[in-house]
């Protein structure tokens, strides 16, 4: 289990995040939908997805997609990395049988007026050659080994 966290001084603009590959199964799509309490049939009923949504199979739902991006970012930062903001655009659906490939790059490293350290990152989820989701995120990072963004409250937390 990961324990270590990166600190702001270990991050620089242009730095690549380690890539991640995930093979998607029917079970995986359904687990993600049920874990996010999404009972809509296009996430567990293939006939419904094909006939009503016009897709080729059931597909990964939005909160499950967000959970993957959160995992991808915090796998990189370690547990003291604290997401402040995440934005994503789902351009295409992810289906069972697909292999998801996550990649990312650091766009900016900054410290706000409260002293909170931030890394702004651009992330992509690809299936084959197609970008299925584009994402940007701002994640707070410790500025030293003693700092912990999770302890920030009130005016010291401005995502």
């Amino acid at each position, binding site marked *: *289990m990961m*324990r270590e966290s990166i600190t702001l001084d270990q991050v620089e603009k242009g730095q690549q995040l380690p890539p991640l590959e995930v093979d998607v199964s029917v079970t995986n799509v359904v687990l993600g939908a049920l874990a996010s309490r999404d009972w809509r049939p296009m996430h567990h009923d293939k006939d419904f997805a094909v006939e009503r949504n016009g897709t080729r199979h059931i597909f990964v739902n939005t909160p499950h997609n967000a*959970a993957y991006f*959160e*995992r991808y970012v915090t796998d990189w930062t370690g*547990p*003291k990395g604290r997401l402040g903001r995440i934005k994503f*655009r789902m351009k295409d659906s992810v289906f069972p049988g697909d292999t998801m490939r996550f990649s990312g790059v650091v766009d900016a490293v900054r410290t706000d007026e409260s002293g909170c350290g931030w890394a702004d990152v651009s992330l992509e989820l690809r299936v084959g050659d197609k970008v299925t989701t584009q994402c940007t995120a701002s994640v707070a990072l410790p500025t030293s080994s003693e700092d912990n963004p*999770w302890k920030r409250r009130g005016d010291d937390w401005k*995502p």
Partner: protein
Amino acid sequence: MSASDLPAEVESWIGERRYPEVGEFDVERGYIFSSCASVENGNPIFWDEEAAKEITDGFIAPPSMISVWFRPHYWTPYRSEEGKPLQCHFDLKDALGLPEAVMTDNTIVFGVPVRVGDRLKTWQVIRSVSELKKTKLGTGRFWDLEIVYENQKGEHVGTESYTGYGYRREA
């Protein structure tokens, strides 16, 4: 900016604080485990009591789960109709006669951490509805929705902004 050809009822909804709601149950670890398992998230602040105590002052929920705590039960003995999350989204589909819909953009800004045992509250705001537009899915309208979340102390825990597209498939 919203379209000028909207039904009066839909126009009246724009900018209004709608569907204030208190969560049906407390934030609990079972769903946190299931969510982490669904994406193989091994972050110790969700699994290890010692790490959670040291880093986050106790167990918290993954920030990306913020909407989960308001998704209605599929069935309860107190309700005869199927519950729907994002009711504003379904209101727009019904009012505009658009039977299918997808979500495109989603932005989440996170406030104080959501803690195990919290009982959250929320409300929804429709920010805009577009003119009719044709896409590869069909003909329909885009809309922007905002969902605000607070904890039981009135602290802001997050705001989600969605862009949805309601449409009718081509015959």
